[in-house]
């Protein structure tokens, strides 16, 4: 599974990504941004983020599949 990762040391907690999230998946609590399971990986927040704090990451399993392997290292 892919997911959106938040780089806490880059994020400025502006909450702007919340505006473009059509899944209501992003919550900003003071200085902590969380993306929950409602996320459909549309990538809008990643494109939006003024400072590049959000990135789409693939988990090991997904990368394994892409390579045609079983995902087991």
């Amino acid at each position, binding site marked *: 599974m892919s997911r959106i990762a938040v780089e806490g040391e880059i994020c400025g907690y502006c*909450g*702007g990504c919340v505006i473009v*999230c*059509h899944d*209501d998946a992003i919550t900003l609590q003071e200085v902590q941004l969380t993306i929950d399971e409602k996320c459909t990986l549309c990538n809008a927040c990643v*494109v*939006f983020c*003024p*400072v590049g704090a959000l990135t789409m990451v693939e988990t090991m399993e997904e990368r394994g599949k892409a390579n045609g392997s079983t995902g087991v290292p």
Partner: protein
Amino acid sequence: MRPIFSYDAVVVGAGPGGSTAARTLAGAGVKTLLVEKRQEIGAAVRCGEVVGPRSVMARFIDIDESWVYQDIDELWLFPPGGRRLTAHFPRCGMVVDRKRFDKALAIEAARTGADVWTKARVTGLTRTPEGIRVHIRHLGEDRTVSARVVVGADGVEFLVVRWAGIRTALGLARVFSAVQYPLTGVEGPSHTLRFYFGNTVAPGGYLWIFPKTGGTANVGLCLSPALQKGRRAVDYLDAFVARHFPASSSVEMVMGGIPVGGPLKTLVSDGVVLVGDAGHQVNPLSAGGIVNAMETGVMAGEVIVEALKRNDVSAQRLEAYDRRWNDRAGNLYRLHARLRRMYYKLSDADLDRLGDRLEEQVRGRNPDDLYTFGFAASVVRSMAWMIPKFRFMVGKET
């Protein structure tokens, strides 16, 4: 659990919109609570810090020089070709210290009788037959506040909005992504706002230099993330700063998102009213929103006072606020949103031609003229005549 606290109105968010709404409510004798999730009202800043002129701001608060950086007398516009267009508008606005300004507004609300809680984060809202229960995490304790009306002035975090069931998420073409450095060592005139345009500077938006004091200025930009071509807002800003102010250093980093999609269909639901950025009450062309937030704070406050008097806070009753906002800005902002979408399609050469044309159109006018429907319509017409891809619009209703 029985509520321990009981208010007529709870205002969520102590920015300019929330504090103005709270003051309007408290001033009319409404028992009001203003909650702010941060420990310090006004920080961190998410704003270019330009507001309206003294005459406009004085309608909302006594001007205190401690939060005024500069009065603005002139605008310099730089289209991509490098020409400078000058608009001389004496005292057309101010650059302010939002940290102090927001605090001053919240203090006014408190002085008028509103209770203020800081470090108070709303964790949820529930409807009951008597009204709304607002669940608040305040200084490490869970508190429940019963309210008849909730004002959502929580900015782009949209907590109240979502709970009220008003859909506000926007596509990438309807938001601006913005970033700003307050920079030291920025030379230039101190009563002049500078704006830079162009697809390599800030695609779909603009870059600004707003003077503060002692050689510092807010240097920032807003752009359309739909047009940024793989580079982030901060990359565009860093490139500009490296070119124009290589010796400067930044003393803070400011960022944010601006809802520039234009007016929402509704700003109310039963017992809930949205104010300011939470209600997308931002000029969809300039992306300015502070005066709007205060204006709508007053509007919302007045409508709620009336609704409470009649003991009816239903959406139908509160729609009076929708109508007032629509009368004030609906047509103008829909046209501004359209202008912004046209602006997205301009090449740098188009922008240069438009700049020349605008210089003629602006000459001899005062700044208030520029915020009229008539002026916006004339710009749409100019663009339609000048720019081949818009020629199909000429003759049609603008």
